């Protein structure tokens, strides 16, 4: 019998995904294992299939070929609702519900899971404290009354609410100004250390990938170019990895897709 702790939390086995009617697959021959407690930074230029990969994990999409396993079970075998309620999801622009208060946004998944209101309220307070938003000030506000950074904190709190073992983060801090972004990246690391979650963290910023990832997976045109530790990534002799590395030294935050192609 396999040791449950050695079983990867998420595993992609030779996954191909092609949109209906499209000629080229978005992802092709992707294999990947995410162990418990690990954070994989998915790094790549726009359109490389990073977001598609996340959506395959929580069953928003199903693979055209190959298998995506979560806790050892193929996503095609999961009830999609149950699967998604067990995974935290953070979107780039937070995707908060504009008609819900901060508290209701954060308490959404626990409420969907049928928690008692008092338990939900306690959990919401706890999480808001955790992400640095005093509940007394923020609980009853609407998303439009928050700054971009505050919104992303709420988004992270919402993803953590039901205490899922797995987080999917889709360029969560991509739209923020550099100072706020740095603050949130540090806080994410702090939370990661404290909570021990597994995460798939999509980014197109090499600095962020190296900061948050225990591994960096470089994606280009739907294929895995490199699957390495941060140290290996810094030494890798792959053109795209070199391009991303150059960005580390450059002033400002220019991603390779914004620079002229080589």
């Amino acid at each position, binding site marked *: 019998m396999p040791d449950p702790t050695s079983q990867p939390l998420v595993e992609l086995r030779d996954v191909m995904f092609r949109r209906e009617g499209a000629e080229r697959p978005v992802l092709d021959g992707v294999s990947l294992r995410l162990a418990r407690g690990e954070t994989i930074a998915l790094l790549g230029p726009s359109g490389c299939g990073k977001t598609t990969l996340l959506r395959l994990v929580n069953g*928003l999409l199903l693979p055209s070929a190959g298998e995506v396993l979560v806790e050892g079970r193929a996503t095609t075998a999961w009830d999609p609702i*149950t*699967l998604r309620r067990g995974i935290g*999801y953070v*979107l780039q622009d937070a*995707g908060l*519900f504009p008609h819900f208060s901060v508290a209701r946004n954060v308490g959404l998944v626990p409420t969907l899971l049928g928690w008692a209101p008092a338990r939900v309220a306690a959990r919401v307070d706890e999480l808001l404290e955790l992400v640095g938003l005093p509940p007394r000030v923020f609980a009853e506000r*609407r998303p439009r009354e928050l700054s971009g950074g505050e919104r992303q904190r709420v988004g992270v709190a919402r993803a953590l609410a039901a205490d899922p073992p797995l987080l999917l983060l889709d360029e969560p801090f991509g739209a923020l100004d550099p100072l706020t972004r740095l603050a949130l990246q540090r806080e994410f690391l702090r939370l990661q250390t404290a909570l021990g979650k597994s995460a798939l963290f999509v980014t197109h910023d090499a600095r962020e990938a190296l900061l948050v990832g225990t591994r960096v997976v470089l994606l280009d045109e739907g294929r895995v170019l490199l699957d390495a530790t941060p140290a290996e990534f810094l030494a890798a002799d792959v053109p795209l990895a070199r391009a991303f590395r150059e960005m580390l030294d450059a002033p400002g935050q220019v991603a390779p897709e914004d620079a002229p192609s080589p």
Partner: protein
Amino acid sequence: MTRELTRLAAEHLLLVVAATAAAAALGVPLGLFVARRRRLQQAVMTLVGALQTVPSLALFGLLLPLPLVGGVGVRTALVAMVVYALLPILRNTVVGVSGVDPSVREAATAMGMTPRQVLLQVELPLAAGVIVAGIRLAAVIGVGVATIGAAVGAGGLGTLIFRGLRMNDDRLLLTGAAPAAAMALLIDAWLAGLTRAIDARVLGRPRARALGAALTLSAAAAVALMTWGQLAHAGGAPSARPTTTGDVKRVIVGSKDFSEQVILGELLAQELEARGVEVVRRFELGGSLCHQALLSGELDVYPEYTGTAFTALLHHPPLTDPAEVYRRVTDEYRASFDLEVSAPLGFRNDFAILVRGEDARRLHLTTLSQAAAFAPTWQAGFGQDFMSRQDGYPGFARTYGLQFRAPPREMDLSLTYRALAERQVDLIAGDSTNGLIDALDLVALEDDRRYFPPYQAVFVARRRALAEVPALAAALAALGGALPTATMRRLNHEVDGDKRLPADVARAWRASRGALPAGRDAATREMIP
């Protein structure tokens, strides 16, 4: 007047509220259903959009003969209004749901909401403002469409508008039109407030509560008006179905939508009431509605003209001998429709070709043959009816070799008198008994080539009603031959010219003949044209 106005306004509001509510109950779920199904959405929107383009009067006409949805009264009007209200509500629902931020929808799905939860907790609340804006548009359109409902006997403020048009009475017309316009503005403002309140609530603005309270209050006021208006005429609810249910001593008297018909309807109604028969009045029905309603049992009796019955309803080519037309109509009605034609009432309401009195005197005109010479310098104006009917314009122009300056203008019959008096046209085809002929100093030219068929006034009754209510036959007999043309023209003038109520005119005439007074004063309460 005030009382009737209140009642009609309440009816109007009730029609609008009921139709809009029904359309919302239908359109919002349908919109939600098709919003995510692109192909179905296109098909549904095209169909509903096509329905919207049918002119309202035509839609009423199309619905009338249909079983279940048609017929005289509120039902037809409601169905037509729902059809019109559907498009804005449906479209705004689709637009509102499609307009929800995709990342919010994606987040909802990714959090593990079921499609139903996404719809009810995310899409619907976020689209609510846009949906209510659609309902608002539908309600305002509904206020307008409801005025036309009066043509099919649905009541409402249109009753006053049509009556005002017919009687050439601007004040009456405005009495109906102004409250309708005010109602449209109020409904619009109220629903605009509701939209704001919803948006404020959805996005968490502070004023939401005060606004909500104001809206609740005003809605309560509207409900109070409707209730009051309904109570105000609770005695004469015209929706009841009489004799057919075996509920014997009750007769539904109908009339077409012009004063003479209403006066005749009143005369018969009062005659029946004097004999202790309970009467339901369903007056002012447009087109051939009365005939259809008689056939379907929704009316028991109404005034008709032999020429109309012979050509328009039995579809025969026109005949000119009055006695023969009367005989053939009577025979065929009995055989084909199981309807009985009463004895002639005494007057004829023939087509009267009218010119201004001053023109007739200046040009020394008395006959149509004489007038033909001046036709090339004249503009003619005719009702839609006259232009198309068997015994109408084409044969008339042929018989007299008429050549007008331009093709005749088609307009509502009731407007032709005014158009003639105001020199917009020079010759019209009116009714020989119309009170406006004297009131506006018009002259009827003699049909010296005997083109026009005779239109003797009679009552048409269902034979079944005659069998069940013996007093009906007696009342009809009492009116036989009682109304010579001059008398009818005078009674018409008392209504159209002197602006008296048909019920009062009928009562006064009956009193002058020493007839039995009507049993109760139901006439004033139920229907005061």
